[in-house]
């Protein structure tokens, strides 16, 4: 860490003013606007917008989708980082690149690929219809699209850390007679637990907030396939702004809680060290 000092010269103060001005204009103002707009019709309207049945259904669906896709990606992230960090095999860097792939795919395209597979006009569509299975415009499609979007989050936190920690601890445990599962549970997992939590936090924030991919596969059926971000869109398009911002403020609070926990992990446990995002 470079030495920091209070800015003294005028040039330094100008730089600080520009940085803070830009920060307030582009980051802080939108955040504040969410809460101001949410409370613009009073606290009673705010509460009513949140306990309305469609809003409650959206909240429940969002929690359900995150509760399925986050654990799936945790299992995947642990498996991938174990294979990649603890072993040497050809094609490793290609595999890492492929794991990162969903980050560079537009959310809309992520939704589209599942429509092409499972939609009515998709490849498996007729077969699924014949067997009465609905994936697109239903909860399974939302879970799939969310899982795709959040796919790399846990793995990319764990792979660099586990690679850095090396294999000595695990090799020592094995040579002392521990089996693979014991080694993982008692040696590896404690070594990476804060990074794992960090990955889960980011994964969860994205899973609950994903809009584009989910919007394509959801069908926007009120009370049935509407997640919280989609509910925000519907309310907004109906010019029900206060209610839209009320639901949005819940998501903004989730984002703030995520950032608070994330910062705590960075400061207290040195996770990530802000080395790479």
């Amino acid at each position, binding site marked *: 860490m*470079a030495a*920091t000092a209070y*800015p003294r010269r005028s*040039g330094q103060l100008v*730089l*600080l003013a*520009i*940085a803070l001005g*830009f*920060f307030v204009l*582009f980051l802080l103002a939108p955040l504040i*606007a969410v809460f101001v707009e949410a409370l613009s019709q009073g606290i009673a309207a705010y509460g009513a917008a949140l306990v309305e049945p469609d809003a409650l259904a959206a909240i429940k669906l969002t929690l359900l989708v995150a509760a399925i896709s986050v654990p*799936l990606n945790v299992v*995947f992230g642990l*498996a*991938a980082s*174990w294979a990649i960090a*603890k*072993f040497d*095999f*050809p*094609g490793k860097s*290609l595999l890492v690149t492929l794991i*990162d*792939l969903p980050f*560079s*795919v*537009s*959310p*809309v*395209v992520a939704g*589209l*690929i599942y*429509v*092409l*597979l499972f939609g009515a006009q*998709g*490849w498996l569509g007729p077969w699924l219809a014949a067997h009465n299975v609905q994936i697109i415009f239903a909860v399974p499609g939302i879970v799939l699209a969310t899982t*795709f979007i959040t796919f790399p989050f846990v793995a990319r936190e764990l792979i660099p850390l586990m690679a850095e920690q090396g*294999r000595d601890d695990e090799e020592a445990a094995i*040579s002392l007679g521990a089996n*693979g599962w014991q080694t*993982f549970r008692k040696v590896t997992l404690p070594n990476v637990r804060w990074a794992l939590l960090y990955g889960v936090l980011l994964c969860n924030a994205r899973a*609950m*907030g*994903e809009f*584009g991919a989910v919007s*394509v596969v959801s069908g926007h059926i009120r009370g049935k396939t509407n997640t919280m*971000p*989609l509910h925000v869109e519907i309310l907004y398009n109906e010019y029900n*702004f206060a209610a839209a*911002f009320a639901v*949005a403020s819940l998501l903004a609070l*989730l984002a703030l809680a*995520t*950032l608070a926990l994330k*910062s705590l992990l960075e400061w207290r446990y040195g996770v990530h060290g802000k*080395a*790479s*995002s």
Partner: protein
Amino acid sequence: MDISEILVGVSDGRRRRSSFVAPSVIPGFGLTFGVTIAWLSLIVLAPLSALFLRTAGMSWHDFVAVGLSTRALKAYQLSFGASLVAGVINIIFGLIIAWVLVRYRFPGRRLVGALVDLPFAVPTAVAGIALTALYAQNGWIGELLAPLGIKVAFTPLGVVVALIFIGLPFVVRSVEPVLADLGSDVEEAAATLGATPFQTFRRVILPAIGPALLTGFALAFARGVGEYGSVIFIAGNMPYRSEIAPLLIVTQLEQFDYDGATAIASIMLVAAFVLLLLVNLLQRWTRKRGTA
């Protein structure tokens, strides 16, 4: 070579494994590698190849008719152009913010540092409606700009504003660690040797942080090109004018024109892959220069 070797390793299973993976006393390679490849194929690779197979099944005429129509070309132009402009703005202001966070001490520094990641954590739809509320004619910022004749919301400028929001943390987070590593002693040395602040910046700091700046720019650009949620509220979505490429995909889908959506998506996906490749090359280059 990579992929064929991976496939050989999977299909031959245990017998050939010893030659595929380097020997180790640590168990669990077969299980974890198998889970990784299976899950990756199921969730990412198979659905993505469905897109390309569908594109391959289209006639060239159909592909061009939608994928390269005037409306689509205008949409690519907006998506890539706005991402470029937002990326350049973020390079400048992202660098200043990173600089201030690393070098200066001021009240609220940690709070600002933590909130820089806001765009990573705030759902895109929430960002979209908040920015629209701010920049609309009667919004806090739109109200100030209206007398100057500047309209942001529901114009291409609105797209740029949304993409600045989305891309800013990529630049700040890429540059921050490099600036911290650089330390202020090299600047002091340059100043002692008689360099002006501008010379110090151009000759000493910029070469050191250049690769990180480029990486941050590329990440923000790639994200901006595919961005949907934060843009559609503020853009106004007028065809030929403020309609982004991802929205055009959604429009085609809503008209049940799967082939049209596929054509546009595959063009965007190829562009994204090229960008990803560039980012990886840049990062490798950055790392090499960092260790040299």
